[in-house]
């Protein structure tokens, strides 16, 4: 610990931070863009696959098996598989990032819709809802809390994984972590590692809280139930 205390004056440079606020902002915006694209594309694919899985039950097992394999492959390896095919590009980063969202999202969408009470579905049918109407106006809204819980996990996970894409030339805030690694013996290096990490964690927390807020606004009935 004594070593750490002695060396700590050279560990972090506020000067570097104040001189690079523009860079930090730009990388943060890129980080958000990479995350939003991955989660939105992941959500669209997951919704489609979930509809298939709900309609044809036997497909659920192979779908979760395949997305489970994607989820288990370490991120660096997944990106490394893609580099020979799609190069050091945004596309490579996004294919990898989207792959990791699928398992979480599909599980939550299917569980959410399965969790809608049979009595509710029956009443809606009795009221004359078509299959499509039932799905969009009854099942999907009632499954929203569980689906949003899945989106929260997917978004927070993706924000973390975006940093790894620095190794394939993307990375948002991961850019600072990777550059800091190459300047590891200088305070300029350690400062960049800390900045990249702290801003990325802050971003994850902010996105998580935003999604909690969205859920609160999007499901007014669960709020009323809570206060009643």
């Amino acid at each position, binding site marked *: 610990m004594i*070593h750490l205390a002695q060396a700590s004056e050279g*560990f972090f440079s506020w000067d570097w931070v104040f001189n690079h606020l523009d860079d930090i902002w730009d990388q943060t915006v890129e980080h958000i863009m990479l995350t939003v694209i991955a989660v939105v594309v992941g959500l669209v694919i997951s919704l489609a696959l979930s509809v298939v899985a709900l309609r044809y039950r036997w497909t659920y097992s192979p779908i979760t098996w395949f997305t489970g394999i994607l989820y*288990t492959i370490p991120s*660096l*390896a997944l990106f490394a598989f893609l580099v020979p095919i799609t190069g050091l590009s945004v596309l490579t980063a996004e294919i990898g990032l989207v792959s990791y969202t699928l398992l979480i999202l599909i599980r939550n969408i299917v569980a959410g819709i399965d969790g809608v009470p049979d009595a509710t579905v029956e009443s809606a049918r009795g009221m004359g809802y078509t299959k499509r109407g039932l799905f969009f106006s009854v099942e999907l809204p009632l499954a929203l809390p569980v689906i949003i819980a899945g989106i929260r996990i997917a978004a927070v996970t993706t924000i*973390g994984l975006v940093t790894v894409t620095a190794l394939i030339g993307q990375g948002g805030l991961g850019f600072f972590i990777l550059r800091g690694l190459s300047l*590891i013996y200088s305070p300029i290096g350690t400062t960049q*590692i*800390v900045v990249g990490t702290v801003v990325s*964690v802050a971003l994850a927390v902010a996105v998580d809280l935003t999604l909690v807020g969205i859920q609160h606004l999007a499901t007014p009935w669960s709020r009323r139930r809570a206060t009643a």
Partner: protein
Amino acid sequence: MVQAKGNGMIEFLGDVLAWFGNPDNWIGPTGILNRLREHVQLTAAATFAASILAIPPALWLGHRRLGGTFVVAVVNIGRAIPSFAIVVLFLPISIRLGLGIGFWPTFLALLFLAVPPMFTNTYTGVAGVDPELVEASRGMGMTDREVLTKVELPMASPVILAAVRVATVQVAATATLGALVGWGGLGRFIVDGFSVRDNVLVFAGALLVAGLALFLEVLLGWVERQVVPTTLQSRSEVVESVVA
């Protein structure tokens, strides 16, 4: 960077096969076998150390039903910290502690990442045991210690084993990043491949890393099914943690 497309792709996969077919790539200190040994040893050491640190306090707190809010906070924060950042962040810390580069920053980062999910899953497993069951055991005259060791621990064992599996696979995945801070392991092939722009090496390394992760997942899943009584198997739902 040469990109492989169409016929090039087939040629490329041929090069990857040829790389695996070359005995020189298997033996010696930088060969596949030694890198695999390093990877497996570090994964085992870090997972074992993390279970020693995480499981006993989680059992006790779960038994007492203490600190639920804390556990939820740990899960959420743990998920938000990128493993890549942790591995890199432990490098300057390790250097300043005089532990150098390579093994120690990787080991400490893996420990740091593996403890929270093991702790929370064990906690949830024990705290989630049906309170009526606990009441009944007490009514039968079991001591506090017996309730923990004879009722709560067996009931929670599927969740704890699943937590160990998830943590092991996560540690093996993250150990790949150790190559960035001067350690060996299978990540070496990918990181070296990136730095010399050798796509064959990158792809071969990715195959090895992915193969090991999937093998561990399947192996530990199989062990779980052998060990856990079928009546308890549906309980083995755990909080899946972040992929590295």
